[in-house]
């Protein structure tokens, strides 16, 4: 260490100058913001529930099941996603489809989001493009493990996110939090 650094006081003053400069610059920006200059920002903070940062279009969010034109699921219950899932969080029960052109339909399609690792393999594996992770919904939580299990009906009702990446369908409320 140089002699000046060993003396410490000089370094203390230079450090205090730096932090004080930050303080007064940010304080000025905060005051300017309060006086109506909305472009002046004294902090890098994003005030989360009111303010959100833009989501990437590639973001893997809550799954949804894609519908056919008649509203039935596009899924043919081929079990590809269930097989590829590394977390074993997908549970499918297959059933006969009334239309003979279509082989099968899921009688049940449950995703346990408490186990899901959001790897997106199910979307990759699907030969029918029947499952997607583009709802933009990230804020699902529950007071119980059962509340994290999302059923076929819930997943079918979801819509893809808008162009701004924001969810267009309401966040599904798990059973244990329904009023």
């Amino acid at each position, binding site marked *: 260490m140089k002699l000046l650094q060993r003396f410490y*006081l000089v370094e*203390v003053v230079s*450090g*205090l100058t*730096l*932090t*004080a400069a*930050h*303080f007064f610059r*940010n*304080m000025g920006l*905060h005051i300017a913001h309060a006086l109506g200059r909305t472009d002046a920002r*004294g*902090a*890098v*903070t994003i*005030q989360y529930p009111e303010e959100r940062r833009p989501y990437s279009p590639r973001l893997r969010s809550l799954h949804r099941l894609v519908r056919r034109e008649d509203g039935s699921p596009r899924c043919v219950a081929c079990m590809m996603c269930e097989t590829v899932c590394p977390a074993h969080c997908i549970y499918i029960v297959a059933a006969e489809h009334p239309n003979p052109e279509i082989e099968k339909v899921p009688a049940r399609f449950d995703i346990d989001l408490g186990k899901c690792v959001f790897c997106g393999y199910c979307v990759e594996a699907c030969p029918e493009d029947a499952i997607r992770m583009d709802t933009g919904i990230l804020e699902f939580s529950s007071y119980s493990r059962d509340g994290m299990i999302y059923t076929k009906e819930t997943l079918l009702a979801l819509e893809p996110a808008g162009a701004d990446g924001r969810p267009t369908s309401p966040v599904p409320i798990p059973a244990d939090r329904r009023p």
Partner: protein
Amino acid sequence: MTDLGIAFGRVAFVMLFVLNMGGLLTWVERKQSAIMQDRIGANRASIFGFRLMGLFHPLADAIKMLTKEDFRPARADRVLFGLAPFVSVFFALVAFASIPFGDVLRVAGREIPLQAVTLNVGILYVFAMLSLGVYGVMMAGWSSANNFALLGGQRAAALMISAEIAIGASIMGVVMIGGSLNMMDIVRAQGHLLWGWLPAWGIVTQPLAFVLFLTAGIAATKRIPFDTPEGESEIIGYFIEYSGMKFGMFAMADFLETVVIAGMTTSLFLGGWQIPYLVADGVRFPWGGAIGLPHLLVVLLQVGAFVVKVCAMIFFMMLVRWTLPRFRYDQAMRLGWLGLFPLSILNIALTGLGLLLWGGPA
């Protein structure tokens, strides 16, 4: 009866000032650190939707702490464990009593000195109270039946001794120039003008002592960079076994000590309630010319000046607290005993030499 009322009023003013400042400092600490670090800081607590820049957070904290479980370890000393936080807060609170916050107020033929208690040995009183404050910390450390707490208490005692010695020695120069141990007299002595224009504030006449006193004073508050007694990341410290409001009282004692040290620095080195060129009957500029002001306005200005100076000192101490990293225990000891203490002695010698050469106390 009137005398009693006046005495009560003086004490109440100081008490409310110090207590409110102590409570507000929790808010200042959060907000100032946030602004220094490009953040926003706590702003969520609200009453009827009003957030007031997070000013309700101290209130929310108090409610939280009062409603928490007051836990006492099974092997802790029942009496001392309960007493320690109160001792800590009490001595931090009463230390402010002899710091003057204004000149003499003349109302209806009475002369009211604006300090809670007029003491001839005011400085010694503040030191005594600050030193006694460490007993609370030591009691907490010892009575908790926890080795980390004991370690913290022992560190606090060692740090306090090394800091107090440096504080006591560094203000000797101010006392020599002021010629009195009475805080009021010391502040008055700083009202003189050097060479006809420079206020003889302690920071001008005793620059070395100012740096030494401030360093030792920050050490006496046990806050970063001298928080070895707490050392959150290593031993957690003397209050490790405390919870709820008792823990809050230790934190509060630290804040109160910050206010006391800020008040001391203001009184001894920043001219206390003095405003440059403001005398008892108005403003008198050194280049001639004067503006007459009513007595009450002068007194109000002086009290306001004192409060502003204390707030500025608190700002500075917070700036230090949020800028510097913690000293290691041995570094803090070395700084106290091998740095601050010899320099304070040197300062006494230099002051004596100066007084010998340029005349005695003014």
